[in-house]
């Protein structure tokens, strides 16, 4: 089996945080990571909290521990993170599988990169994410009652 060549990650955490000159997709990547880590942290706690119902404890009901504005706000942030992570994730899977990046062409100046070919997909996904966040906000603000 071929051995994997290891390269030092010189930039470390700064390599994640600094978008530099790489354009809007680089910031989409950063936000995808941050939302992923946030959702994971919430999910691990969510497993513990919701498992308590098997012992007859529903700690999210009115008057219980999790019935506080800070947790409601946190839940909305998780919902918004999910909306972004899911829709950007669809874009990433499509691009990974070769969709929405155009056919390979000769590199003739002025160059047209696959980044600019897939950009309308990024814009469409971000608009959809905003619509979902708005719908979730409508519910969280209690306007749906």
């Amino acid at each position, binding site marked *: 089996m071929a051995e994997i060549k*290891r390269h030092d990650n010189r930039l470390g955490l700064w390599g994640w945080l600094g978008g530099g000159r790489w354009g809007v997709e680089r910031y989409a990547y950063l936000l995808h*990571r941050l939302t992923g880590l946030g959702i994971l942290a919430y999910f691990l706690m969510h497993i513990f909290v919701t498992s308590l119902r*098997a012992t007859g404890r*529903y700690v999210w009901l009115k008057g219980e521990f999790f019935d506080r504005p800070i947790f409601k706000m946190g839940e909305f942030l998780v919902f918004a993170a999910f909306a972004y992570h899911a829709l950007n994730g669809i874009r990433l*899977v499509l691009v*990974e599988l070769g969709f929405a990046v155009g056919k390979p062409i000769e590199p003739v100046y002025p160059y047209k990169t696959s980044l600019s070919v897939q950009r309308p997909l990024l814009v469409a996904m971000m608009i959809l994410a905003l619509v979902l966040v708005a719908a979730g906000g409508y519910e969280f603000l*209690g306007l*749906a009652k």
Partner: protein
Amino acid sequence: MRETKYWTWHMAAGVVILFLLGLHMLIMHTGGITHWFAPHGGEAISKENSLARDGMLFFTVTYILLLLVALYHGLYGLRTILFELTLKPAVEKAVSFVLVVVGLGLLGLGTWAAIAAHAIAGARG
């Protein structure tokens, strides 16, 4: 090859999560608009509505499936991020081991809770 396989599973798990978590989010957070799977009215997270969903085999099975794919997707994603920091091979092995143990532990807890809640809801009729 093995890492390619893990990465493909990571993407496939993401697609499964998209549908299952999408359904979960729609029920839980747009329930005031849609009123899906909340037969007792009011909030989707009320005890009565939670018990009603726990009593449906569809939800018990999909909760366990969602738990499995979401744990894999999330913990593999975390592993990928950590590995990008160029860890030593021994540390990489330790990280993988800890994440597998945590994942299996939480899968066991969540599966037990889903099955127990289904039994409780069934006993209440």
